């Protein structure tokens, strides 16, 4: 039997108040009250001043409900914290924050590393609900922790409505697994809770706790705090206390003017504080970057260097690279008959991408150390680290010289060179020099071609962790626009009755190709439906004639999608012998750039390209009455060229659209808006033909 070691840990938490315990009976009934006693005969419950006994034979379970209040603080007048007391005496009014749903009055994160080099972080939040729309966001809280490395808890949580205090209790607290659908990678847990008695005007006060039972130097420990979100903050403070013999690196990004930064010598330890006041809320804007890329933040980690961080990883990985007969045999089988290093690498990439199931869990949610290649191979399943690591091992077994690198997730805080820590990374990649070129291989999902990098890993920082360049950082660039997007070629024929027939060949690249290639896993009937829907989106009277996708099952080839259609009643007719129509798939919208200005950049995960070439045969006996003149348009990071060219009995159309950046800064937004509007206006123009 295990020993009980809890008492000491609980002593630091709030003393519980008398609770409404729950007794669940075998027959399904639930009794509520305070458990007075439990014996071998019965459970005695007190409710409404009366004690009732329930025979144990009827009892399924007794839930000793914990109340997350603070001792003695049974109403607002008895609150000991003077700052909170003052806030409760004069809570903010909705008119103080006319645009917002709630206001965070205090957001205090306090991380302390003890002499035992273990970290404890608490988060104290006090917020006031200003409008009904925000009560859910304000009152429902979730804290994540990595099992085995962290433990999460709630110190207190309560809601104030005037003088009344409503404490959270266990009935609306739940602890659970975030990745139970991946049993082999089920490690990230969370504690969530829903505050009771929350309405407009409620002040919520809670403190959560994350304790780490391991030395901060043995895991890529990192702590961080964002200072701005979609609701305003009156006071946000991040405090880090560390022993002097455990140096920490810190990085502060974008803190507003007036932010207070303090370093205090506490004798054996150092306390650093970052404090920001009166931070306005973000407003939702179209195509916004992830919050982590725009919010001011502070990140901290034990001081290190990139070579040290890489060595920590490679030291853990080295024992896993012992020769493995199964891995060697698998590599040999896959590369059999492949002559060149590139062919071998592509074959191994395709094999890992397709045959090893991707369990979509990042390193921070499971482990920064991969499983042994043989284990991954045996399971034929791997996460964002294990799949690339297996490829790395297979490439080595095939006689190639790969390096393993860790990459940042583009959705996280931007890569920070001055903060060497493995904790910055989410996924792994294999670096391989073949044919005089550096190739970056990320074999996560099998719908990408071998040289494609998923968009969430483009434009991010990385660290080589094994191989000759171990310890070097690098930037994984955005994939070139030429290798993203789609080229469409259409051959169309307009009839005198206004119907249109045509065939199209689509040549997708990059992420667009990956989307198309996902069809390989669909039932044939589902694919049939997909093409019918694609054609129906052109026009309600459109009918699919046929389709095919070349190379769908062959990951070594680019896809070519062919689709033919016929559309009755396509052109609009007007008296006077006119027909008007627009070409399929040329529409462009200016939605999303309606606002005259914006605060945040426009953001995309990748570059974009769209090329279209069409030929329309006009009906005999009709002449082109009007076609739009050519357009040559450009905006920040973007260009659009289009032209119509009449030729004997036909009209040719060509357009080239490029976006070479993943960001448009707010200062460039007005020009970008003009560009998008001009493109949309052009795309809305019609072609008119006239009889005779």
């Amino acid at each position, binding site marked *: *039997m295990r020993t009980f070691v*809890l008492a000491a840990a*609980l002593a630091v938490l709030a003393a519980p108040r008398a609770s409404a315990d*729950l007794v*669940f009976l075998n*027959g*399904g*009934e639930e009794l*509520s009250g305070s*458990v007075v006693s439990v014996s071998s005969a019965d459970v005695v419950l007190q409710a409404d001043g009366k004690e009732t006994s329930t025979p144990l034979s009827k009892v399924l379970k*007794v*839930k*000793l409900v914990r109340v997350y209040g603070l001792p003695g603080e049974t109403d607002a007048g008895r609150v000991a914290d003077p700052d909170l007391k003052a806030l409760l005496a004069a809570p903010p009014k909705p008119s103080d924050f*006319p*645009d917002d749903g709630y206001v965070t009055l205090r957001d205090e994160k306090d991380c302390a590393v003890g002499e035992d080099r273990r970290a404890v972080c608490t988060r104290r939040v006090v917020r006031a609900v200003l409008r009904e729309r925000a*009560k859910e966001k304000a009152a*429902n809280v979730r804290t994540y922790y990595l*099992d085995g*490395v962290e*433990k999460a808890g709630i110190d207190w949580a309560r809601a104030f409505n005037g003088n009344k205090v*409503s404490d959270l209790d266990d009935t*609306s607290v739940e*602890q*659970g697994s975030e990745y*139970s*659908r991946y*049993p*082999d*990678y*089920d490690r990230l847990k969370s504690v*969530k809770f829903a505050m*009771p008695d929350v309405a407009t005007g409620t002040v919520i006060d809670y403190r959560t706790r994350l304790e780490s039972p*391991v030395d901060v*130097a043995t895991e890529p420990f990192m702590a961080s705090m964002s200072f701005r979100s979609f609701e305003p903050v009156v006071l946000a403070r991040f405090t880090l206390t560390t022993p002097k013999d455990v140096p920490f690196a810190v990085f502060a990004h974008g803190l507003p003017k007036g932010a207070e930064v303090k370093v205090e010598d506490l004798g054996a330890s150092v306390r650093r504080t970052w404090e920001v006041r009166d931070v306005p809320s973000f*407003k939702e804007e179209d195509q916004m970057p992830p919050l982590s890329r725009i919010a001011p933040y502070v990140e901290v980690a*034990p001081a290190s260097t990139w070579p040290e961080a890489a060595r920590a990883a490679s030291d853990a990985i080295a024992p896993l690279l012992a020769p493995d007969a199964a891995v060697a045999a698998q590599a040999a089988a896959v590369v059999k008959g492949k002559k060149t290093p590139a062919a071998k690498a592509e074959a191994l990439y395709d094999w890992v991408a397709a*045959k090893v*199931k991707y369990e979509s869990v990042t390193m921070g949610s499971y*482990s920064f150390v*991969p499983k042994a290649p043989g284990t991954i191979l045996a*399971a*034929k*399943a791997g996460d964002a680290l294990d799949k690339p690591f297996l490829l790395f091992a297979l490439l080595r077994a095939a006689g190639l010289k790969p390096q393993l690198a860790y990459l940042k997730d583009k959705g996280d805080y931007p890569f920070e060179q001055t903060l060497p820590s493995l904790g910055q990374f989410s996924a792994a990649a294999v670096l391989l020099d073949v044919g005089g070129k550096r190739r970056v291989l990320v074999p996560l999902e099998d719908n990408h071609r071998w040289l494609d990098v998923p968009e969430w890993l483009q434009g991010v920082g990385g660290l080589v962790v094994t191989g000759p360049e171990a310890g070097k950082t690098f930037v994984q660039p955005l994939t070139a626009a030429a290798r993203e997007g789609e080229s469409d070629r259409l051959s169309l024929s307009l009839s005198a009755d206004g119907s249109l027939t045509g065939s199209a060949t689509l040549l997708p690249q990059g992420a667009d190709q990956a989307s198309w290639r996902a069809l390989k*896993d*669909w*039932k044939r009937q589902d694919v049939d*439906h997909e093409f019918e*829907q694609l*054609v*129906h989106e052109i026009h*309600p009277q459109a009918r699919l004639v046929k389709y095919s996708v070349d190379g769908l099952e062959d990951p070594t080839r680019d896809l070519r999608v062919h689709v033919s259609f016929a559309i009755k*009643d396509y052109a*609009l007719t*007007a008296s006077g012998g006119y027909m*008007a129509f627009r070409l399929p798939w040329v529409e462009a*919208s*200016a939605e999303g750039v*309606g606002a*005259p200005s914006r605060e945040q950049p426009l953001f995309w995960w990748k570059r974009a390209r769209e090329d279209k070439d069409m030929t329309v045969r006009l009906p005999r006996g009709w002449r082109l009455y009007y076609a739009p003149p050519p357009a040559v348009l450009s905006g920040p990071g973007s260009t659009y060229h289009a032209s119509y060219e009449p030729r004997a009995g036909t009209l040719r159309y060509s357009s080239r659209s490029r976006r070479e950046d993943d960001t448009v800064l707010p200062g460039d937004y007005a020009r970008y808006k003009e560009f998008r509007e001009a493109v949309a206006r052009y795309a809305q*123009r019609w072609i008119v033909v006239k009889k005779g």
Partner: protein
Amino acid sequence: MRRSLPAVLAAVLAAPPQAGAVVLKLRAGGEENVPSVKVEAGSVVLPDGKTLPREAVEEIRYAEGAPAQTALTSAPAASIEGAALLRRAAAFAKKNPGVDGIILAEGDDVTLRKDGTEVERQTFTGQILKEGLKGSWGRVASSFEDGRSRVRILKATVYEPDGRVFPLDPSKVQVTRPQAESLFFQDYRETTCQLPQLQVGSVIDWEVEVETYNPFRKDFFFPEWGFQDFAPVQDSTFRITVPEGTKLYTSATHFTGPWKGKDKADVSTKDGRTTYAWKLGDLPPIVREPDMVPYGDISPTVKASLFGSWDRIYDWLSKMYETRSTPGPELTRFTKELVKDQPTTEAKVAAIYHYVQKRVRYIAVKLGVASGWGGYDANLTWKRRYGCCIDKSLLLSAMLRAIGVKASPVLLDTNYSAAHDFKVPDIGFEHAITHITLDGKGMFLDSVGEDFRFPQLPTMDYGVKTLVVFDRKEETVPMPKPAENLSDYRYDLALSTDGAATARFSASYNGTHEGELRGYYKSLKDSELKKNFEDQVEGVSPSARLTSYRAENAQDLSKPFDLGWSCVLPDYLVSAGDLYLLKLPGLEQEFPETSLAKRRYGIEHHESFEKRWRYDVTLPPGVGVASLPKAETLEGPGETFKMGCRAGGKGLTCEADITRARRVVDVGEYSAHKAFLDKVARLTKERVFLKKGGA
């Protein structure tokens, strides 16, 4: 500082306890098994005299007689068995080209024991034919409730095409507690394992046993099975075994086409047990179609019960609901104060409805049978100011009862799910609303929706059959007439000779659509509201400039929500030589539901509606009408459309109107429905042709 990483840190899961009398669930994680336990004052006392602070223990579970939550393995499967399965799979796959997987056998075998406990064995044998299926078929999992049920994975074997066999490794079986969605608090766990070595061609063969050793009611036995799947199924079997002499009531639905006449069970009795068995073969896969009816309305399905009348369900529910919807003195006082200024009973009901909608936020805490089905006491929900659908229904009922209005909780499946089969009783409902009697007239209210003005309710409730618990009757939520869910759009456009325009738009609503829009607009900050309208007008025409906007009463349920804007459209008219093409903003409609030439299944919507558009267009001097869209009147199954334009005075007027009276379009009506909607979509693409220099 030298940093190192530990070896792989495997997920740490609490080891399941061994069977014993009492299980202590500890707050620090993990469980302990002890012979007995006492709770005295602030301590939990163990038999050896050790004490734990009460706060260290979260739960005391009396598990006497509970089987251990362990996994068993069958003997390693013989490869000869795999070879037979692979041959069978090859033959069945040949009959079903293009599918991503095939199911050779799928079954559910449910046994009710004499002592009222139940054991269910689920079996599955299938072959993966496309890589994508490895994700959804690659895990075996089943949930259980501590103290009532347990799960054992009896078999989980992967047969590879090359003859290798991978039987279940018991060390890979995990017991986990999945975190529920953010608004749900539940108390169940899951036994799960990952299947190894999956590849295209692998045959998966598993068997899971779920034993309910402590049912909360021994007569509540409601087995159910749907025979069809999204992959073709060679054999689908359902067996229910009950003690001999026990009457079993069954209902079979959707046994049509090739399965007509196969809805009768094969009944056999042996060793004091009677088994009812259904078996269907060669079931084609369900293929997804846009807006298709739910799975349960397609697949042949059997459900059963030990009793044929709903009385026992009504008795059980009424007893719980009666107590829990009785307002205490404090709630009664509050309710009367809340409605004291309302002049009529209807206004009082509306005020209470709006209060429960808005002041009690949706949180579902389902810790046991009573809170799961019975909900929490209304007086507690009122204090917590959170609750799920049944909690809110009980509170609404209690508050209405406090002012003398008859009200009853109602159970139903929403119209997002299959129609509930009422032929035999069960308790598997997914939603709860409220039925009230106001001035002698019955009506339904749903206090889960926060944005629906009395007496509106969310569309998900429309047209479904319900259980009105206190009235002990089944009743269908009526569908509103189209005009009762009306969106009325009005545009005034003034055109200039340079192709620019000014536009003024207003929209008013009644019915559920009003509530849906209110919910959206309520969620926006004021600054975001402006941006929203800027985007709306940009959608009317690129480079549009918003000049004014309004969204009225988004926060105030007592008043109708409406909105409007006006804008300048510098390049509104599309020029083509000496022609202008005028688009009627907001009119163009698309109907993805008719994208398929033919369908296998009907279409299911959630509501009836009517939309009206009116455009008053002022033309500039020197510009005349060249051509107007033809007037059209169309009819489809339960739907109408009309549209027409007329020129006159200094401009023209266009009007359009579409109605839909029914939620469901049967597959036999599809071609008429498609013809109707495709024509409507085409007509709404029409343009008015104007000509410079007059017509």
